């Protein structure tokens, strides 16, 4: 069982959803992001996603765009992202990289998988990679024991959900709404329906992302999903902080709050395998 699968299994045994926290590498600095990610894990994130800052983040809203822009402007390289994974995974939390595809393609898929595995990484979340184009990555992932996580959206047809989930490993990332990353006042109404449809195709854990920003929303999502993914809310804490120390404290606070949220809706009747 992969480390990611283990984390979901663990949460299920506690009759709660897993908390998945996202932070981009290199923001506010490479060491700062490492410290923030570890704090997030210590305060309750069961799984950590490390974002690879990219020049053309199509699916990201203004918050993550700004953070990754600053990370790139600060000189963050792919090697720094791998270092970040090493440090965070080394602190004992399953750690995946979330990345757009070109940087991996340019690095060389097999080489990237090797270096990710060597750094202690657990897998990749690939928002702009379709299963049709994923052949080399799926092969490398199988070779290296990495989880390939793909996204499904409310607009995904049942046929596509079937296709996507058939190649997924670790968990399925369900985008809660049609849109970019960023916190919203309400979690997308389409999320529950999407999770149902995904469950019809796979027994993999389903985690919902996009828009979750507080304990109440986390609890709401935890009521119907196996995992709650939070990104922009954490990044906002760092963006809005006076300095890195304050930012990391804010990240820690939010993580505790969200960790409480995913336990709020722990219900005896939750059926999880």
């Amino acid at each position: 069982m992969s480390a990611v699968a283990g984390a979901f299994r663990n949460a299920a045994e506690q009759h709660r959803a897993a908390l998945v926290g996202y932070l981009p590498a290199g923001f506010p600095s490479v060491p700062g992001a490492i410290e923030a990610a570890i704090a997030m894990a210590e305060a309750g994130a069961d799984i950590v996603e490390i974002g690879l800052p990219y020049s053309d983040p199509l699916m990201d809203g203004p918050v993550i765009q700004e953070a990754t822009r600053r990370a790139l402007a600060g000189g963050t390289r792919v090697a720094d992202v791998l270092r970040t994974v090493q440090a965070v995974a080394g602190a004992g939390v399953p750690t995946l990289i979330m990345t757009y595809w070109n940087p991996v393609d340019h690095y060389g898929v097999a080489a990237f998988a090797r270096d990710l595995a060597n750094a202690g990484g657990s897998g990749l979340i690939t928002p702009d990679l379709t299963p049709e184009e994923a052949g080399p990555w799926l092969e490398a992932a199988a070779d290296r024991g990495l989880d390939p996580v793909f996204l499904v959206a409310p607009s995904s047809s049942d046929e596509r959900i079937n296709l996507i989930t058939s190649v997924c490993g670790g968990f399925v990332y369900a985008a809660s709404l049609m849109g970019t990353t960023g916190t919203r006042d309400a979690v997308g109404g389409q999320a529950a329906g999407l999770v149902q449809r995904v469950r019809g195709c796979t027994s993999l854990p389903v985690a919902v992302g996009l828009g979750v920003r507080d304990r109440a929303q986390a609890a709401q999502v935890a009521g119907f999903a196996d995992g709650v993914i939070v990104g922009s809310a954490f990044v906002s804490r760092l963006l809005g902080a006076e300095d890195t120390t304050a930012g990391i404290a804010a990240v820690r606070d939010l993580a505790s709050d969200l960790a409480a949220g995913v336990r709020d809706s722990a219900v005896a009747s939750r059926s999880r395998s």
Partner: protein
Amino acid sequence: MSALEELTAAYLSAKADPAFQADLAALLRDYAGRPTLLTEVPRFAAEAGGGRVFLKREDLAHTGSHKINNVLGQALLTRRMGKTRVIAETGAGQHGVATATACALLGLDCTVYMGEEDTRRQALNVARMRMLGAEVVAVTNGSRTLKDAINEAFRDWVTTVETTHYCIGSVMGPHPFPVMVRDFQRVIGVEAREQVLAAAGRLPDAVIACVGGGSNAIGAFHAFIPDDGVRLIGCEAGGDGLATGRHAATLAGGSAGVIHGMRTYLLQDGDGQTLETHSISAGLDYPGVGPEHSWLHDTGRASYRAVTDAEAMDAFAVLCRTEGIIPAIESAHALAGALQVGPELGPDALLLVNLSGRGDKDVDIAARYFGHVTGPAQ
């Protein structure tokens, strides 16, 4: 994906539908002004090695460039899909103006995304779009040019896909855009091939076009692809020169990768981050290129060369003075290509150059460049 699947199905259905094709042909004829002229330019040709040069006059199409061919097709498709809103990206503004035009004609809502840098250097086109009823959004992320406008348009589309069609302006992006836009633009080469045979009794030795995203070039090239004796020559934006790194010459200076939903050549650094591009012409300032051009390049069917800002402006001036035609700065890159290729091929050569647009939008930049006016840009 579902938006792309829906679009692919709608496009294939429209392509096979005689009624759709008839509607499009009628608009191209009665509204856009097709077929466009093929003009022989002997005084320009004298500067280009002494052979014969013909210009395909996309500059005379309604809105002043070839962009109208594609937007009319996509606007009709939008209506066919029952959508009421169109969004677009634009670099120089020509595609934005063309999209706003088609939307005004067909009663569709229109929002155009344009890099803030470009809204400044092509301010008149921003005004045109607004006059035509479109909303223009200045994009302030990233390098604030075309690639960032594309990113923002995709972000809009992912949220509004139920009501909105994203009218991409070039032969780039995820399938079906490269093939669909090429199909809408290939009327250029189909007409030109017929016209040059009628005018000169033979096929050209070379078809030359500027390449940014690649739509006017693929439109000019496509009908000639089966004609083995016809060279296909693409002229990219060489900016300050390839060696300086300040350019947008994707095929000459880039490598294979993934950008905007396509596998193609792009200008990228060692980490696969997209590089910033530089060109005097906003319409060529794109770090990627249409995948069909990548294919033509890799198979050797077409060749691509970088033309510097200085070479393009020199050719711009030559056409103005020898033929009384003010070209778009983008198109001037193709003219510069002709000034190089002509002497390479000799005085028996026959060159067909796609004049993709007129230069009214560039008069301010060109006037400043040549010193005809001084002082700050209007």
